[in-house]
């Protein structure tokens, strides 16, 4: 059974479970809330998926979100006009992604270590920018994305943006040659290099795209909460990685799909929402993510484990049955 099929079954099951828990589950208000609370994480999961498939990882995503949120608050409180602020935030995203890219591709450093470092560095910059201040004087026209749907639908703005981006990322990954290069790089970096794929260039692009997307997600996050504070998004990077992994992306690279990630987002949002409706302690929903994650890695391995066990049994049986070397 393919991973995505299993995930789809899971999403349907969660939907049924949710509807049985509360009649509110599929109400328009709840769907709006569903999309709202996990919008930014879902958006960040898209470039993360591409990066993990290519064999790297980017743990600095939540810190880039926080840093852009801090920059937004900082510049706004200093009277900058919004369009100029947006431009600066885009530049910030490019710079943040570029630093990751240079350290990984030019210096050849492991992306796990690099992005742990930049996670701290960017969070630190967010702290330096805002300190202990909280900026909440944003104009209502922007912060309304936290309270109003896209006109004519039940979707929140972040959910709508996620869906559009998912289509774009899906096309890039599954249809274009660029996408095939990403899979190749993850499956076998050496072979990809010798096949003529510009590995460095592709990885650089991926990290910069991640930087820009995450800084944009920071803007969404800030407006949704109508607050810019230095610990915005703290710890979200693990959620993003968890979603990608549950979505079928292999941590070793070379495997995964956007469909799977979208389904994982739905599963994640659905579970969180179902638990919310049952008054489950919101902060403990981590147990569910953790459990999902474990199941997602053990189920495929289970097949391998039983296969190994079976083969060992057959092998033992064969040697017992084999005739001994007799001397004629």
């Amino acid at each position, binding site marked *: 059974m393919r991973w995505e099929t299993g995930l789809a079954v899971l999403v349907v099951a969660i939907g049924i479970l949710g509807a049985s828990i509360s009649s509110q589950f599929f109400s328009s208000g709840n769907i709006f809330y569903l999309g709202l609370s996990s919008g930014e994480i879902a958006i960040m999961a898209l470039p993360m998926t591409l990066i993990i498939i290519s064999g790297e990882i980017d743990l600095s995503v939540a810190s880039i979100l926080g840093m852009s949120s801090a920059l937004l608050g900082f510049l706004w409180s200093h009277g900058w006009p919004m369009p100029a602020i947006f431009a600066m935030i885009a530049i910030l995203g490019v710079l943040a992604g570029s630093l990751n890219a240079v*350290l990984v591709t030019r*210096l*050849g*450093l*492991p992306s*796990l*270590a*690099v992005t*742990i*470092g*930049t*996670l*701290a*560095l*960017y*969070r*630190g*910059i967010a*702290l*330096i920018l805002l*300190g202990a201040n909280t900026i909440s004087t944003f104009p209502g026209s922007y912060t309304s994305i936290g309270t109003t749907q896209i006109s004519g639908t039940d979707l929140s703005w972040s959910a709508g943006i996620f869906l559009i981006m998912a289509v774009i990322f899906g096309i890039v990954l599954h249809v274009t040659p660029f996408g095939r290069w990403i899979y190749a790089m993850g499956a076998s970096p050496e072979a990809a290099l010798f096949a003529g794929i510009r590995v460095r260039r592709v990885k650089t692009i991926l990290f910069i795209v991640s930087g820009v997307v995450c800084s944009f997600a920071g803007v969404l996050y800030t407006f949704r909460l109508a607050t810019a504070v*230095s610990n915005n998004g*703290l*710890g979200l990077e*693990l959620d993003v*990685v*968890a979603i990608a*992994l549950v979505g079928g992306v292999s*941590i*070793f690279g070379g495997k995964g799909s956007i469909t799977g990630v979208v389904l994982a987002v739905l599963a994640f949002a659905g579970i969180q929402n179902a638990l919310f409706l049952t008054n489950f*302690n919101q*902060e*403990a*929903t*981590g*147990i*569910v*993510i*953790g*459990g999902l*994650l*474990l199941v997602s*890695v*053990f189920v495929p*391995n289970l097949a*391998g*484990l039983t296969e190994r066990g079976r083969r060992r049994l057959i092998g033992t049986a064969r040697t017992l049955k084999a005739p001994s070397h007799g001397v004629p």
Partner: protein
Amino acid sequence: MSTVVAPTEPSGTPTDVRSRRLTDRVFRLRESGIIVVLAMFVLVTTAIQPRFLDSANIQFVLVNTTVFALLALGETLVVVSRNVDLSIGSVLGLSAYMSSSLFGSIHGISVVVVFLTGLGIGLACGFANGLMVALGRVPSLVVTLATLYVIRGIDILHVGGGEVVASTLPSSFTNIPQDTFLGIPVVAIAVAVVVAAGAYYMRSFRSGRELYAIGSNPEAARLAGIPVGRRVFTAFALSGAIAGLAGVLWAAQYQTIDSSAGTGYELQVIAAVVVGGVAIFGGSGSAVGAAIGALLLATINSALNVLGISSLWVEAIAGFLLLLAISLDRVISLRLANALRLMRSRGGA
């Protein structure tokens, strides 16, 4: 029929010995490098603000470091074998709450029992991690990421909105971080001994050295007959137990424990460990270096405070140091590889 045995190079040839000496020297240099940075930091800060080296401040820094140094020891065991343990922050939090809440629920319980409880909780978590990584052959990043969530979730469910407050803790417990021996906090001495013992074990005991082999090349280690599964399991079990112990110490120090205790510690510890010279992909580094990395970060924190620079800079500096450390390590190892290659091509036949 006689078999021809290819002549093998005796292992004591000049090239071999020279390249081994060079490698040893470079690695020892790396460790002394952090000590040099630490010393420089202390000197510069003291020159600007003599208050930095007064006994109250030193005690404060040392006590603060003890928890992280312990965690760094456990993490080193795991990282050296090419794994990672992301769950230590959650384990610390769970152990801190559950052990210190015993004082409130069981009157007159002995401090030793509380410490053992914390150790036991950590050991159980470590067992779970180790089983899943060693038996299930699942990458440790994923397993410990999941247990980070699950353990933190269990902690939150158990604690709810409650907390352990200092008034429920007996003074025999809360005095532990404050006891000193010849001016040095007793906990710092104890942790230093534990870290030294850990480093000695990794260096001089077969099972300890095998961790390095596993981190250096897991397949080769397996083929060489090293019981990889058992070693990795032990590393995770120890890491969990140490995190559990650190949790109890943490509780004694901070005295107010809620469900957020230890959040985010895992990344700080990994940063300390990498700055201390442990390679993120395993195979090299020592627990002593990792502990010094933890000390360095705590010192920087204190130095910034004393110099009046906002402690907001600490995180950015820590991140920058980490990047600097791994970049330097990379450059050094590339140069070393080049030098070894030149040596061999010049010295060999």
